[in-house]
Structures are given as C-alpha cells and as structure tokens.
C-alpha cells in the first residue's frame, strides 16, 4: 500500500465520533464605524496614512513623501512611476525598487488589513522587494471584519492573495519592534477614490 492509502486508512480507523460542523456567524451586529476603525488598525500595526486634497496630483504627492526615491514602480494607473511593471520578466528584477505603488482591492476595518492579489500586484514580489510601499485605497472599499473578508469571491479566484497589515516587522531580538525585517520598511495608505470606469 502506498503512503497516501496507509495514512488515509489509519486516519479512518482512528477518527473519533463525528462532531457536527457549526455555522459561523458574521459577528457584525456591533461593528464600529468602518473608516476610523480601519485607520486605527492600520496605525496600530505600523502603517501610515495620508489623505491628500481631492484635487491633489498623486505623482507630486509621491515626490514629497519619498524625495530620495530613484526607482518607482507602479502597478496602478493613477501613478506612472519610472519602472514599467510590464518590462519585468523575473521577480528579482524588482530588487532595486525604492517605492512600489499599488491599489488595494478592498480593506478590512477590524484588523487594518489591505487585500492584494496577483491582479493588484502584477508581479507578487513588488509587495516585498520594494523598500517602501504606497497603497491607494478608496474609502468605499472598506469592509467590516474578517468574516466578511473571507466571504469575498476574490479568495476563491486569486492564485495568490495576501491580507497585508502594516510593513514587514520583527521583534525577534529582545522584543524590540523593528520595521523592515525582510520585506518593506514602510507602508503608507493614501486615500484615493477609484477612477471612474
């Protein structure tokens, strides 16, 4: 008998008496106001938050946020950047990116998380190899909690999906919190309503 069948056989023989699968409620009776809760969650996890004037030019904003940035790679049409993602054939070519720019598909108020998949990322590694990350978010795209998040169809269609909450972090040396462990050193959420289709 092969390993698969041996394992499944032993499991079947040893399975305890059947326990019924419960219904998982949405726990959304008393959700706090979505937008303030999202901002609080994001900042708690080390993320930053910028709300530009509605008429502000995002490219100009980026230049003031990261004046030193030499390589800017954008996966969203609102920002042009100077490294076209379409020219990237291998993820490691993003090694020298100073600032990556994305737009979240949606965000979760409960935890301050942003949802990104290969659709939003273009090349998944942009969210990790960039030194800094800017993520555009339409306040209309914020949902209440993780129960609502996992009910979204994206989790069934995306090849890769991440709930990103703040920048890369570690506290592995004496509990000292450090941002920029292996991934991005900072994450800035910029309020930017979606472009009309």
């Amino acid at each position, binding site marked *: 008998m092969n390993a698969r069948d041996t394992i499944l056989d032993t499991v079947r023989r040893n399975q305890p008496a059947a326990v019924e699968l419960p219904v998982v409620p949405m726990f959304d009776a008393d959700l706090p106001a979505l937008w303030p809760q999202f901002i609080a969650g994001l900042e708690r996890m080390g993320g930053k938050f910028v709300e530009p004037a509605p008429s502000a030019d995002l490219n100009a904003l980026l230049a003031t946020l990261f004046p030193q940035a030499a390589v800017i790679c954008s996966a969203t049409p609102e920002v042009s950047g100077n490294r076209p993602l379409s020219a990237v054939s291998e993820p490691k070519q993003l*090694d020298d990116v100073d600032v990556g720019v994305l737009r979240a598909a949606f965000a979760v108020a409960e935890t301050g998380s942003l949802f990104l998949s290969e659709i939003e990322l273009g090349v998944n590694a942009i969210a990790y190899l960039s030194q800094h990350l800017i993520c555009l978010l339409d306040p209309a795209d914020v949902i209440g909690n993780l129960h609502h998040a996992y009910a979204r169809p994206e989790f069934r269609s995306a090849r890769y999906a991440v709930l990103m909450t703040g920048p890369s972090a570690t506290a*592995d040396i004496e509990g*000292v919190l450090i941002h920029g462990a*292996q991934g991005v050193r900072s994450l800035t959420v910029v309020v930017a309503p979606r472009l009309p289709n």
Partner: protein
Amino acid sequence: MKRIDHAEAASHFIAAKDNEAFHDKRLWDLRQKRDRIRDEIPEWQALRDLASVIKEHALSHLAGYLEQFETQAKLNGAQVHWALDAADHNHIVGEILAARGVKTLVKSKSMLTDECELRPHLERRGITVVETDLGERIQQLDDEPPSHIVVPAVHKLRGDVAEVFADTIGTDRKNDDPHYLSEQARLNLRPYFLDAEAGMTGANFIVAETGSVVVCTNEGNADLSANLPPLHIVSVGIEKVIPRLADLAVFIRMLSRSALGSPITQYTSHFRQPRPGSEMHIILVDNGRSERLGLADFWTSLKCIRCGACMNTCPVYRRSGGLSYGAIYSGPIGIILNPTQDLRKYSNLPYASTLNGSCTNVCPVKINIHEQIYKWRRVMSEHDQLPFAKKTAMKIASRLLSDPKAYRRTIAATDAALEYLPRFLLYTRFNAWGKQRENPATPDQTFYGWYLKHRSKPK
C-alpha cells in the same frame, strides 16, 4: 533514546540570570497583550467555542477533508505528496530539489520541518538551506533548535545575538543594537532570496474547499520565499486541514491575538495556485498524527494551531526556557505532544508543570492541556517510566496518605523540625522544593489541629 532531564537542563538556563529574568518578563508581556486584545472582542469566547468545534469536526472527518483538499489542490495545478514519517518527508523534499538541480533553498519558519530534521538531511545532500525568519535564522546560525514555536530565539539577549552574528556573518561584535543586528540579517538574507532556486514554507492552515495554503508571518519572509523562486514546496501536517474559508476567518481572528496580542499578523498569505511558469508542491505529513488521532485521552491535542499562548502563560516554561524540554515543541503543548513520539525520552516532561490550568484557559481551541498533562503522568506511571527518586517518594507518600494517624504525626513533626533545622540540612540535593527557591514558611498550626479547636462541640 536517553531520557530528557527537564529539571537538570532548566538549571543551566536559570543560572543565566539575565536571560531568565528577561525571558520571564517578555513572555508574560505577550500574555498580557493577549488579554488586552481579547477584551476588545466581545465574541471572544464564542470564537473559542467555534474554533474548538470546527477542529473537532475536521478531525472527526479528517480522511474526507484530506481527500477533498488533495482534489482541489490538484485542480489548482499543485502537486500533492503524502509522507508517512519524517524520513519519508525528507526524502520527498530531497528528490524534488535534486530533480531540478536546486543548490539553495530559502525557507520560512516551519516547526514541522524542524520536527522532521529536514535541514541536516538536505545539507548532507549538498543543498544550502537558509532560514529566513529572523529568530529561526539566529537559531540556525547558532546551531540550536528553536526554543519557542513563535519567537524561536526569545531565550537570547541582544548580546548573545551580537556574538552569534559576529561569529557567523561578520557583524561588529561590539554592536548589540537590535536595529543594527536586524538590518545586518536583512542584508545578509537578501541575496539568498534573489538567487535561491526554490522556496519552502510551512502552513498554518490548509482549506479543503479551495485547496488553499495559508501562511502567517510578520516579516513577509514566507511571501519572499514563495514569490521569487520558480518552485514553492509546502510542508504541512495532516491535522492542519479545515473545511471552509468561513472557518478560516475564525482561526485568523484568534491566531495572532493569542500568540502576540496583535489583531492579525502583518502578512496573512493564501497560496492557491502556482504562479504561471512555476511549480507548487504540497507535502501532507503524518509522522505519528494518524496514530495520535486514535488515543481517546489525547487526540484533541491535534486541534493545536501553534499560537504559543500556553507557553507564554506557563510559569514553568517562562522560567526554564524552551530548550530544557529537549524537543521542538516545548512548554505545555510540547508536554502533551512529545510523548506520543517517544514515551521514554519524554517521560519526565509531564512533571514540568504545576497543573495550574492557565494553559487550558488561554488555549484558543480549548484543548484541556493541563488535564492531558495529568493523564500523561498516569501513563508514565503505568508504563513504569517514573524515575527512581520520584517512585520512592510516591511509595512513601502513598503509605503516609493512606494512614491518617501516621500522616498527622509526620506533618506535626515535620513542621516543628522545619522551623528549627539549619539551612544546610534543609536545602540539600534531596529536596527538589528547595532548589532555586525558598521553602514556604511552615504554618503555626496544622489544618487538622485548627479543625479540632474550632469545630462546633457536640451538644
């Protein structure tokens, strides 16, 4: 296999006073953070109930869910392998890597691969294995196993890390600033991420209905390991399968809150299909789990989601350090997992507990950890695994406790003696209670004496 002497090993950790004091404080701090964030969620206890029942459901239908996961994962384009035990697992990984000429493997933290001792196996086959979680990397460079399943190097102080990094990656020995050390680790690891031909992750959960692999990290190192090389290998224990995405919400809400007191990890990543042009292999590992499922008293230990809350709260773990358990899984959860792997080797571990029940109270999936620890003591006794001193003490105790008169005489005499005996007679190697702590003060009166004096007189 030699029996692990937890108390003896712990004495070395206790001797390093600064490390022990910090360890105790840091883990208790995590426990308090966990309490604070628990109180932000009114439905916390309802979530614990759900998490527990979902896991019991999944384990009582495990074969079906494993088959469903396999079918979905294959439809998604992943390749699924089954490993009976550690050797089987290591062989499968080695063959996948060898067939593709892989020289360097970047890895995110996986207790399962530590359990299987994968690293030495691959190194013997000439493959460079690079741990990329900072804590696990420190432990790899120091050639030590992780001492905690969530924070692997928590027993080390900054000075210890500065020494390890100076010896292994050439940092400035005199600079023990954690920011400097973390930055050096980042710079050291970056080229491995860029050039490795394969990446490996564990899995916190796998979802049967979608075939998804879910990995939670704060550093983003699993995402770097899986999203850069053209080959992603996932090792996962068969008990990690859950039925639906709706169930995943319950566990993700609890995992990091229980582990670190944060609402979620910085990165909760879902790998469902390989990237175009790349491969994804998932190895479902048994290594004793299917047998444990049949143990009436212990199968619920398979519900564990590896949050480490039971370790952070345990007074024995906090003061003895994870390495003293002589196993990858330490603390209360380790005490109840390890004996199923090797009864004799871990026969001392069930005594590394005060049975205070705090582990059970913080467990997000409601495993009755302290009751299982007690039951393991019974198993050890029935299998004649008690060490000689404990056996002798138990025999004397049993004689005394079954004879009320002898018991009262002994207690009275002992209390009197304890008050007047000099320290050198009380704090000997035969008195385990006097090691690293003061004996409790003796009461002025025994309970029985108090009772005789105060009971209502018959009319």
